[in-house]
């Protein structure tokens, strides 16, 4: 089996053009060691996307938006390619409800720009403490310092952090859930098949957290805490 160095875990919800866009981004990287794992909603089931040597597809119901898709891909990565050192979580973010959606998306995808990609890869090699790498400006800290958080998700987040033993001292997280992470951290937390269990708890449909907290939005935060809990650092690029 081919040896890959980087696995891009891409959730594609809106249209199939997103996959071509991702292929273009990967082509620009000019690195044959990039593996693309892609999750799609069931509306694309009839398209029957073909598995290739460097592209794998899954089709699943829309649970937990991009987080649900990424959890399936984490499960797939750990089942098929647990030795790929780095996983890069991305999705076709649109945020149609916001006028700044495209602006945010361009910023978040900075981690796949060729020069930034190489810089992140080099930093991961050089710094064993680096656990997560994300685009500049998307690292958020909602901690109030008293064990609660400045978000409608606060009480649910505290409960889930307790349940999954995710109690880091650094409560920052990557807003938008697009980042690089060491696969070993995913393996340590999700190994044994926890990813499908977590996915099963996520809400279906278009989940929003404006009025009240949701499991889906809590996991947007907890995914970063998987690294900080283990005393790894998050760095912006």
């Amino acid at each position, binding site marked *: 089996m081919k040896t890959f160095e980087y696995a891009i875990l891409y959730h594609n919800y809106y249209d199939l053009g997103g996959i071509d866009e991702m292929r273009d981004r990967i082509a620009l990287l000019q690195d044959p060691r990039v593996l693309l794992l892609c999750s799609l909603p069931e509306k694309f089931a009839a398209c*029957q*996307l073909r598995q290739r040597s460097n592209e794998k597809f899954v089709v699943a119901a829309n649970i937990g938006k991009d987080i649900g898709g990424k959890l399936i891909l984490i499960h797939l990565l750990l*089942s098929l390619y647990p030795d790929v050192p780095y996983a890069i979580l991305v999705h076709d973010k649109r945020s149609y409800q*916001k006028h700044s959606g495209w602006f945010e998306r361009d910023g978040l995808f900075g981690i796949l720009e060729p020069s930034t990609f190489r810089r992140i890869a080099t930093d991961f090699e050089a710094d064993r403490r680096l656990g997560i790498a994300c685009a500049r400006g998307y690292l958020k800290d909602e901690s109030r310092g008293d064990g609660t958080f400045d978000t409608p998700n606060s009480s649910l987040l505290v409960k889930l952090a307790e349940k999954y033993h995710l109690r880091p001292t650094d409560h920052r997280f990557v807003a938008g859930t697009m980042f690089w992470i060491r696969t070993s951290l995913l393996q340590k937390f999700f190994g*044994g098949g926890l990813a*499908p269990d977590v996915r099963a708890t996520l809400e279906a449909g278009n989940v929003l957290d404006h009025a009240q907290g949701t499991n889906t939005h809590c996991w947007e935060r907890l995914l970063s805490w998987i690294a900080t809990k283990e005393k790894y650092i998050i760095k912006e690029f």
Partner: protein
Amino acid sequence: MDSHEGKIYNQRILMLNRYYYFEEGLGGAANAVAASIPVTHLVRPGEDGNWRSLLDHHFSEEGNYPFCLALPSEACGSIQHLKDVLPLLFHPFYERSGDGKPLFIDGPVSGHGEAEGVVTEFFGRQRLAVDLIPLQGRPVTRKGQVRWLSGRSSDAGGAYYRYCLSAYDPSDIFVVDGREAQGGLLIDGLRRSLADLESRHPQWFRLAWDNFRLQKERDRLAATCDLLEEEKKIVQELLEMSNKHDEVSHILRFYRDEYEILPLWYKRFGHILKVGMGKRSFRSLYDKTTKKYKD
């Protein structure tokens, strides 16, 4: 199948029932794939099982053909085993039927009920509609009867021909037993019996095929309708939120309060500062046709 596509469509058979090609190993299903009959893999979970090789196979270029799984009933009770095979049920080529993705249960009837409960709950939590079909011990399902085309029965093709003319039910499911060397011959026999039916009883054949085809199409459209309904709801919510959002006025207020309010000389000095910092081109200070900022 790309390079053989023409050949495969030539070999495709018109189905009057749901047919599945049942096999334990890998790679013996070329005839079934060519005939567009979904392959049913008997998957053995656990440390010594074949589930890993199935995962590797179907997530490779060789695995792009319709398939489904048959789980031994004793494996259905283990959540870990179900998790092991879960990626296969998300595979784009996993077979779909009107009632969901077929998952056969193989093994003695005792324990079926408990196994079905565990499987239904596990896949239900993943929002995976799974159509559980027992292979043995309980031949009649709510949808029809599971019937085997086996190498042990002589003239399996002829048996299917007689079945069509005497006891045909489009809900019946036929499992072609490929565990014996005659798997390919069974498919050939099935193909011949279908050709005979088409030539000797053209009206019956046409009606049966249309009935089966339209049923499948109706199921597909019903599933599509559900998905479109869900998507419409999502788009509607986004539209409502977008209408309510005051992001533009927030940005305009921010622009007015943080920038527009400043004196003109201060803003002009800021532009010169940007040139000095390399954020803006010098030429753009006096030539409005030139590009101001880097992308």
